[in-house]
């Protein structure tokens, strides 16, 4: 991935930052220049919760340059509504099922880039429920 591209995407990659439409209230990810639902332009930055569920998944046995198979990929339906493509981590392929609760973590998302830096971003792992301290 080219360095300027990575720089441009850092808030989405590191913080899962999407947008909230100030006109219709829709939440969207990835960010766009206008609301996909109502086409209005008044969009506010909106950090997504990172909680969602597996909508579909696949294990790759072959991969494009920069990726080392096998690895797990999914469409994750976020609690706020958007469905995003992300790798799964900290899980075995046979444990995955559609509907499984997952949460965002920050991980290295590919091997070293051709320009020699590491690309970090969001992946999803099975959700860990922490009990509230009494």
């Amino acid at each position, binding site marked *: 991935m080219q360095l300027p591209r990575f720089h441009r*995407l850092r808030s989405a990659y590191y913080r899962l930052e999407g947008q909230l439409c100030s006109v219709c209230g829709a939440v969207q990810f990835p960010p766009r220049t206008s609301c996909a639902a109502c086409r209005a332009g008044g969009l506010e930055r909106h950090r997504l919760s990172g909680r969602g569920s597996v*909508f*579909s998944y*696949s294990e790759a046995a072959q*991969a494009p340059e920069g990726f080392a198979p096998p690895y797990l*990929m999914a*469409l994750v339906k976020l609690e706020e509504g958007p*469905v995003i*493509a992300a790798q799964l981590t900290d899980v075995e392929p046979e444990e995955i099922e559609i509907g499984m609760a997952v949460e965002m973590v920050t991980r290295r998302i590919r091997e070293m880039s051709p320009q020699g830096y590491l690309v970090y971003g969001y992946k999803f792992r099975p959700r860990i429920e922490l009990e509230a301290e009494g």
Partner: protein
Amino acid sequence: MRDVFIIGVGQTPVGEHWDLGLRELGAVAIGQALADAGVEGVDALYVGNMLSGCVNGQENLATLLADAAGLLPAEAFKVEAACASGGAAVRAAALAVAAGVHDVVLAVGIEKMTDGVASTVAAGLATAADQDYEASHGFSFVALSALMMRRYLYEHGCSREEFAPFAVNAHKNGVGNDHAMFREPISAGDFNRSPVVASPIAVLDAAPVCDGAAAVVVCCRDRIGPLHEPVRIAAAAAATDTIALGSREDILTLGSAKRSAERCFAASGLAPGQMDLFEAHDAFTIITALSLEACGFAGRGEALRLAREGCISADGCIPLSTAGGLKARGHPVGASGTYQIVEASLQLRGRAGANQLAKARRALTQSIGGHGSIAVTHILEA
């Protein structure tokens, strides 16, 4: 708008052409199409191609091919629409003729994939997806289709094995096409035992990486000569959908395929039941199923019934991939859409050889790119 007719077709065999580069493949297909049309030159050349920049290091491809094929100084440029590029190039050629700008135009779809190693080709194919939010996370062309297939199995309660008839049918038809890459039949057992590429997609769900070029000459009515066997473009349409798979309202509806097919049926006054064959974009068995549903041959989730009941074979109600399709003829990505139109034209002219259908008056062809983000659909009529 003027009516547009296909008066010449050409195609190279599809396969691994280690001794032929872009210029040779293109010149062969173009030369055959010109000879079939009985013309020496054209007003314009439109080239459908996806990967010449990132796999072959060659842009300005249309100029290269115009030069190689002796068509200078004709207008020439490349049309890129991912795996739908070959259909888009024919669409561009037909638009130029329909608009009255040009009278005789050649469209060639071409791809030379074996110049790159597998990981380079995979990275190139992944550029059809959203680079920022899909490809950069390791989502390949096959992986995105695998996500659709997994969801299809889940929502419709079916198994991968039920997709076998699509691959078996394609290979059966490939046997009779001497331009096909794979000319050996496969069994449902072969399909079921095939090794996984991106679960649940296995090798025999998928079309192969290969090289090839196919070309058509289109013209207006008053340029049809006495020796031509013209095929009319009864309708054509292209449509788009979100580039990111997850952004679609329903990932199991190919919106671009559906809308472009609906426009073709509305413009021609024809219905799916009046098509004698369907050259579908069978890059993966799941895409075949979704295409049948998008074009109205089956309802949502019902395409496997057509496969199970034999409707897709040469003597069925909607013969599919009659020259082997992307699966067995091969899928030189930016060329496949043009191959479909060449093969459908040969069926309508009664020149499909061993694979000739008993009745072939109208054909539907559909070229899809970016796992359904772009589709180009044509209805051809003898």
